[in-house]
C-alpha cells in the first residue's frame, strides 16, 4: 500500500506528462520552409576520392562531368552522331590514324573567367599522361602541339582512336593551367572543394562524405541554361536510406536504389524504372599459378559447374545476362559470337576425374561491400560442391581482397570474384589487356595467366584499333575465343543499369560511356 501511495504522487504524473509533452511538441512540428524551386536535391552513394581531375579515377566522376569538360562527349551506342562536341567543335585525323587535329570552341572559359585555349589542352593532357590516375589512356601520345590559340595537333606513336580517348570519363578533362600550377605546389589544393573546370556547374560547398553543392557557372558557353541553378547532393552510402529519402520527398532523385527494391518501384506510378546496358561485368579469376588450376581442363570443368542463369538472376536481381567473356555487352569489342559455358555437371565431373583431380578445395574471395557478390557467391560454392569440389568462401573488403591477391600470388586465393568496368569505352584496351595480358607484377591480372599468343593478339589489336577498327575487332575476337577455351577466368554476367526516375522530372538518359555520371544541366521538370 505504502509504495503505491508514494508512486501515486503528482511528481510521477509530472514525469509522465513532461515526457509525453516533449515527444508531442517535436512530433507536431512541421518541416520549415517550402521547397526551394531552384534547388534539385539528389541522394547518391558516389563518394569523392579526390577532387583532382587529373588524379580522378573513381566514383567522383558523378560530379566531375558537371564541373569539367573533355574535348568531346561520346554518345551511347546507336545514337548518331557518335560524339557530341564539348570543348572541341571539330576534329579530324590523318589516314594512318597517327595525327589528330582538334579545333577548340570559341568563347569557352574556365570558372575563373580565363579562356579555354590550346595551351590548356596541351597542359592538361601532358599532366594526365605524366601523373594521372588514368594516365595509361595517353600511352600512344607522342607530342601535342598548340599550333594556334584554338587548335591542337596530337601526334601518336601508334594509331589510336583519339576521339574516343579524348572523350574518356577519366583522364581527359581540360583543366585550368593556373590550377595545374597551384596543385603542383600544394597537393591538397583541390581537397576543400576547389575546381579548375569549365563545365556548367562549379563546386560551391563540399563536406567530405556528407554533401556536395554545385551551382551554375553563369558564363558557360551553352546557350540553354540549366533549369536548376543549384544541385544539392547528399552522399548516402546505404541504398535503402537513399530510397527512403526519395520516397519521403526529402530528395528529388536517388541514384543508388537497391535492385531488390525495383519491383516495388515498378508498381509505383510516381516513378519510371528504366533498364540500360552498363559497362559492369562480373568475373572470377582462377589462380593459374597453382595446381590443379594451372590445368585448363580443370578450369573448364569448374566453369561447367555453374548455373549461370541462376547466378545472373540472384546477383543481378533479374537485371543481368550471362557474360560472353570479360567484355560487357554494348562496349567495343563485344562479340555476340563468342561462346558461353553452360551448366554440364556430369561432364564437369568426368573432366575433373580425367585430370586426376581428387579432394580439391578452392578458396574463393569476394568484396564484402558488394551486395551482388554476397548474393551470388554462395551459388558458386554450391555449384562446385555439386561436382565434388569443396569451396571456402571469404568475404572481405575489396582493398584487402586486392592487396592479398597482389602480395603473394602463389599463396593467394584460388578464385577472385570481381566487378570490372573499362576506364573508357574500349574494353579491348582496358578489360582484355588489363585483366588477362601478361604482367611481371600482378595488378589487375589476378589470374596471373601468361600466354604469349594472347598477348600478341591483344597488343596488335590495340595498335590497329586507331586506324582499322574492324581488323582490330577480329583480333580481339580471337583473343576472346582464347579466353573462352583456356578459361583463366569464370565469366559470370553483365549487369544492367537500372534507373528509377521520378516522373515529375525529366532527367538525361544514362550514358554507358559515363557509367558513374549524372548530367544535371539537362534536368528539368517533366512537361
Amino acid at each position, binding site marked *: 500500500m505504502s509504495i503505491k501511495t508514494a508512486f501515486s504522487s503528482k511528481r*510521477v504524473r509530472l514525469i509522465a506528462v513532461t515526457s509525453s509533452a516533449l515527444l508531442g511538441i517535436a512530433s507536431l*512540428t512541421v518541416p520549415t520552409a517550402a521547397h526551394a524551386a531552384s534547388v534539385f536535391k539528389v541522394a547518391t552513394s558516389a563518394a569523392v576520392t579526390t577532387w583532382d581531375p587529373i588524379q580522378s579515377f573513381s566514383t567522383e566522376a558523378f560530379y566531375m562531368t558537371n564541373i569539367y569538360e573533355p574535348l568531346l562527349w561520346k554518345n551511347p551506342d546507336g545514337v548518331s552522331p557518335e560524339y557530341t562536341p564539348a570543348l572541341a567543335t571539330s576534329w579530324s585525323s590523318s589516314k594512318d590514324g597517327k595525327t589528330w587535329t582538334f579545333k577548340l570552341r570559341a568563347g569557352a572559359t574556365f570558372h575563373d573567367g580565363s579562356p579555354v585555349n590550346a595551351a590548356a589542352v596541351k597542359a592538361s593532357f601532358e599532366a594526365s599522361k605524366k601523373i594521372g*590516375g588514368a594516365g595509361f589512356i595517353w600511352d600512344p601520345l607522342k607530342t601535342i602541339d598548340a599550333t594556334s590559340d584554338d587548335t591542337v595537333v596530337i601526334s601518336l606513336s601508334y594509331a589510336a582512336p583519339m576521339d574516343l580517348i579524348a572523350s574518356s570519363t577519366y583522364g581527359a578533362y581540360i583543366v585550368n593551367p593556373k590550377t595545374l600550377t597551384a596543385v603542383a605546389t600544394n597537393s591538397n589544393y583541390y581537397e576543400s572543394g576547389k575546381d579548375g573546370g569549365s563545365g556548367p556547374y562549379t563546386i560551391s560547398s563540399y563536406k567530405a562524405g556528407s554533401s556536395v553543392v554545385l551551382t551554375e557557372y553563369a558564363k558557360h558557353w551553352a546557350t540553354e541554361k540549366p533549369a536548376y541553378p*543549384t544541385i544539392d547532393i547528399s552522399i548516402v552510402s546505404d541504398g535503402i536510406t537513399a530510397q527512403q529519402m526519395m520516397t519521403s520527398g526529402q530528395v528529388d532523385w536517388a541514384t543508388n536504389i537497391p535492385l531488390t527494391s525495383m519491383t516495388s518501384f515498378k508498381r509505383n506510378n510516381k516513378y519510371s524504372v528504366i533498364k540500360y546496358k552498363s559497362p559492369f561485368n562480373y568475373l572470377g579469376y582462377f589462380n593459374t599459378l597453382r595446381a590443379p588450376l594451372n590445368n585448363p581442363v580443370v578450369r573448364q570443368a569448374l566453369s561447367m559447374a555453374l548455373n549461370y542463369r541462376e547466378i545472373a538472376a540472384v546477383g543481378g536481381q533479374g537485371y543481368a545476362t550471362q557474360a560472353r567473356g570479360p567484355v560487357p555487352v554494348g562496349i567495343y569489342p563485344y562479340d555476340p559470337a563468342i561462346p558461353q559455358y553452360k551448366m554440364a555437371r556430369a561432364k564437369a565431373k568426368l573432366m575433373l576425374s580425367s585430370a586426376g583431380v581428387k579432394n580439391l578445395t578452392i578458396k574463393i574471395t569476394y568484396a564484402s561491400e558488394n551486395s551482388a557478390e554476397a548474393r551470388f557467391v554462395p551459388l558458386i560454392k554450391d555449384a562446385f560442391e555439386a561436382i565434388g569440389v569443396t569451396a571456402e568462401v571469404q568475404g572481405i573488403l575489396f582493398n584487402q581482397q586486392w592487396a592479398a591477391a597482389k602480395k603473394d600470388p602463389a599463396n593467394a586465393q584460388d578464385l577472385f570474384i570481381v566487378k570490372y568496368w573499362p576506364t573508357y569505352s574500349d574494353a579491348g584496351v582496358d578489360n582484355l589487356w588489363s585483366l588477362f595480358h601478361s604482367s611481371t607484377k600482378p595488378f589487375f591480372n589476378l589470374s596471373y595467366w601468361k600466354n604469349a599468343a594472347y598477348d600478341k593478339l591483344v597488343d596488335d589489336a590495340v595498335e590497329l584499333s586507331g586506324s582499322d577498327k574492324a581488323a582490330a575487332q577480329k583480333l580481339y575476337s580471337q583473343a576472346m575465343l582464347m579466353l573462352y577455351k583456356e578459361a583463366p577466368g569464370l565469366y559470370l554476367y553483365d549487369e544492367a543499369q537500372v534507373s528509377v526516375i521520378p516522373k515529375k522530372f525529366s532527367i538525361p538518359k544514362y550514358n554507358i560511356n559515363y557509367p558513374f555520371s549524372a548530367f544535371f544541366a539537362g534536368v528539368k521538370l517533366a512537361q
Partner: protein
Amino acid sequence: MKILWKRLSSALLVLLAASFVTFTLARVIPSDPALAYIGPKATEADSAQLRITLGLDQPIPVQYFKYIGQTLQGNWGYSLSSKQPVLQEIADRLPSTLELIFFAMGFALIFGVAMGVYAAKYRGRLQDSVIRLLSIAGVSMPAFWLGLLLQMLFAGRLTWFPATGQFDIELKYDNPITKITGFPIFDSIITGNFAATMNGLHHMILPALTLSAYSFGLISRMARANLLEVMSQDYIKVARAYGLSERLIFFKLALRNALPPILTITGLSTAYLITGTFFVEQVYNWPGIGSFAVNSLISIDYPAIMGITLLAAIGYLVINFIVDLIHAKLDPRVWMR
C-alpha cells in the same frame, strides 16, 4: 587527491593500450592505403610512393611512437579518404553526435526512470509486464534494425517524421544556421532561428529514440529493481514508523538511495551510445562521428580509425570519471573503498 591521481594514471594507461592495439591491428590488416587515397585503380607506383609519403614503409614501433608524438601535439594525421586533418573532421562532426547523444540520453533517462517508477508502482500487474516487455525489447533489438523499422513506419508509411538527415535540405537555403558553437540545434536557439530549431527537433526524434532504446531498457529495469529493493529496507520501515509522509520517504530517502546504481548504469550506457551512433547515424544519414567511423572502417582509413578510437576511449574514460565523481558525491563511501 591520491585516488584522483590513481584514476587519472589508470585512464592514461587505458588510452595508451587502446591506441597501441588499434594502431597495430590497423597496420597488420592486409590492405592498400593507396586504394583509399587514390581510388580503386591506383597504380603500383602510386601505391609505393604513397607508402613512403605516409611513413608506412617504416617499422611499426617507429610508426607508433611517431604517431603518439604527433597526436600529443594535436596532429592526428590526415584522413586518407577526405585528405582533411582527422582532428578537424572529428571537430566538425562531434557536435552533431553529441547533440544526438544528449537527446537520446534525455529520452532514456526520462522514459527509463518514469517507466521504472511506474512498473514498480504496478508491480506484478499488466502495466509492469508491458514495461518489462518494452525494456527487454529495447535492450535486445539491434539499433540498425530498430532504426529501419521506425524509419519505415514513421517516415515511410505514416510520414510523421523525416526519414533521414539532421535538417531539411531546404533549410540551408531559406533559414541557414549561423555557426557559433558548432552545435546546430543549440546555435539555432541562441541565434533565434526557431524555424531551424523546430526542424532540427523534428529530425532528431527518430534517431534519438533509436539510440536511446538500449539505455531506456537498462535504466527502466534498474530503476524498478532498485526502488523496490530500497522501499523494502528497514530504515524505510523505521521512517514509516516515525510517521514520515510517503512522499518524504520516497523522494528524500528511497529515490536518493536508489539513484547511484541508476547513475552508474546511465554513465555506462552513455559511453555505449558513442559506439551506438555508428549504426544509428548510418541508418539516418546523420552527419556525425558514427557515420564518419563507418565510412572510415569501410575504406580502411587508418588515421581516421585511430582518431575515432582515441576519441571513443577518451569519451568512455571521461564519462566514467564523471560518474565516479557524482557517485562519490551521492555516496562518500565510494572514495574509501
